[in-house]
């Protein structure tokens, strides 16, 4: 049995490649492009096996030209393909932001529905690895400022596969955030055909006292906090949003009907973080459910420092989450 488990070790990193491969097998219009994704199999090893299985006709190495990568993906998506473009680190989305902000999400609308842009932009997001200010950001909030993009940020290998399938099959453009600090983690390999509809949050842990809304890296963090607090008699419900757009506010509001207390845990900075929007929906539509202030545990409003010890000061940690929950449950 031990050997079987070992053989079956399925990482988040593996899941990315597996999720893409499943769709490439199903649909010949799925093609990949990006820097070092071919023979080199990706700098995060998230495209392992694709070049071998599908060859250079479907897995294309590009120059360091983020605008050309995403712009070409857009042109291809408008003309019958389903490109999956890799932007190596999510920080580099800034180098092709025009495509994410002004072109891809607006093409359908501004042509009165004439064009469809079914593409996925995948990117390694987030901190915790000591990569410093320009390679560590959680920038899902950048995408969140732009109507017209779907936004996915999974927390488990199985979700990576299921959401990757949904993202690639989606006729809408999807930005798919793969969290760098989760890549090495593992979990069960989902069955063939595993598909998770976009916009469905998961209740990662049920609880009755406080609702914690989390995403990607902050899900395991929040689960650890919930574990610790269970020992103190505080029952925490953890919601894994899985997607920011569509945003599953129904699951959040329903949870608050029971807990009446909300903590949002997000890695992106507090200023302009997606948590603000979640809070504002609750403070409007869920006001009467609330028995306590709403707390956000978010990245500090500073660039990311290099040193581990400094980075821990400015991104969410288990301690910061337990502290916030304790204060709410004592309110």
């Amino acid at each position, binding site marked *: 049995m031990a050997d079987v488990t070992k053989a079956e070790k399925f990482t988040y990193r593996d899941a990315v490649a597996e999720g893409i491969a499943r769709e490439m097998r199903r649909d010949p219009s799925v093609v990949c492009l990006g820097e070092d994704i071919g023979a080199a199999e990706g700098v995060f090893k998230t495209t392992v096996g694709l070049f071998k299985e599908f060859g250079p006709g479907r897995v294309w190495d590009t120059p360091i030209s983020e605008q050309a990568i995403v712009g070409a993906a857009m042109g291809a998506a408008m003309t019958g393909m389903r490109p999956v473009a890799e932007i190596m680190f999510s920080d580099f989305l800034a180098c092709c932001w025009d495509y994410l902000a002004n072109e891809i999400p607006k093409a359908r609308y501004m042509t009165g529905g004439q064009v469809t842009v079914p593409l996925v932009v995948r990117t390694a997001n987030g901190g915790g690895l000591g990569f410093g200010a320009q390679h560590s950001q959680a920038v899902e909030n950048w995408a969140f400022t732009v109507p017209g993009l779907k936004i996915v940020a999974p927390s488990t290998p199985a979700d990576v596969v299921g959401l990757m399938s949904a993202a690639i099959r989606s006729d809408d453009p999807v930005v798919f955030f793969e969290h760098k600090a989760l890549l090495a983690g593992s979990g069960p390999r989902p069955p063939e055909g595993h598909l998770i509809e976009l916009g469905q949050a998961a209740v990662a842990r049920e609880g009755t006292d406080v609702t914690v809304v989390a995403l990607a890296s902050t899900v395991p963090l929040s689960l650890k906090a919930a574990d610790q607090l269970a020992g103190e008699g505080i029952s925490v419900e953890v919601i894994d949003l899985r997607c920011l*757009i569509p945003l599953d506010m129904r699951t959040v509001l329903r949870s608050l009907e029971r807990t009446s207390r909300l903590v949002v845990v997000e890695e992106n900075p507090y200023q302009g973080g997606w948590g603000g929007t979640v809070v504002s929906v609750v403070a409007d539509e869920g006001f009467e459910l609330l028995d306590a202030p709403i707390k956000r545990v978010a990245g500090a409003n500073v660039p990311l420092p290099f040193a581990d010890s400094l980075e821990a000061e400015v991104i969410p940690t288990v301690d910061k989450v337990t502290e916030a929950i304790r204060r709410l449950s004592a309110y």
Partner: protein
Amino acid sequence: MTPEELLDAYSEMVLIRRTEKAAHDLFMSGLVKGTTHLAAGHEAVAVGASSALRPDDYVFATYRGHHHAMARGATPEECLAELMSRATGLCQAKGGSMHLTKATNGMLGSYAIVGAHLPMAAGAAWSAKLRGSGQVAVAFFGDGATNIGAFHEALNLAAVWSLPVMFVCENNLYMEYTPIEAVTAVPNPAADRAAGYNMPAEIIDGNDVVVVHETMARAAERARKGEGPTLIEAQTYRHFGHSRADPAKYRPADEVERWMKHDPLDVARARLEALGVPPETIADRDRRAAATVDAAIAAAKNAPEPEPALAFTDVWADGGAAWRT
């Protein structure tokens, strides 16, 4: 081009010219809101190019794109209705002058961020190559676009991947109000960059529809044979200012005069006459264009405004705009 083809091209150019004139007048009288960027003077580039393409080829244009939309089959009525914010507009009044699109005819849009569509055209060409469809893609852009990063990235990618794409610069000597020569390190802003991408380039008279047609036909043939991209710098001039009510006072009078004398309609008319096409045939085409545009203006004026609900359609492929579940 056969005389018949040339006559059709001429007719199309006249139609575009008249439609643009209408757009200008409607803007001045307040019926067209926002902004317009007229392409009057550039007609030969659009018509010469489109006449060398297959119906299933792809075209990407800029905010100055009326001529490209029409050359690919958008009607004066569809265009004017769009400019006049009517529900019957090409883009249901959601795009406006800067975003004319006729996707059913392969005219995949007009983009208002300078240079942004060059990588898209490369991508459409990549798609054609992947599908083995034999299609080509064309990006039309201004001289000013040659100094933006996306130009560089698109040309390099197209060359490295040997894509069936043509990059067509409409060099009209100016960006908005500033001459291109004031801000570009080389005299031919597009063509002088081609060598850096190992790409063949031609500088042509963009006001001669026959020259444009023949150049594009050759480039398209190369592309379809798998011989990769071509860069074409078509020299032309705009008859109006940059946009809206710009009187273009920054242009020297003698330059304007010289170019006005080299009007693409005159060039085509002279060619037709040289080919023996009778003046009354040409005049007949002129009349028909005028009648078509007059009818289009009337139809657009009478067309309904968009329903308010249209503001919330077509964000997503399911037709809606729901952002939460």
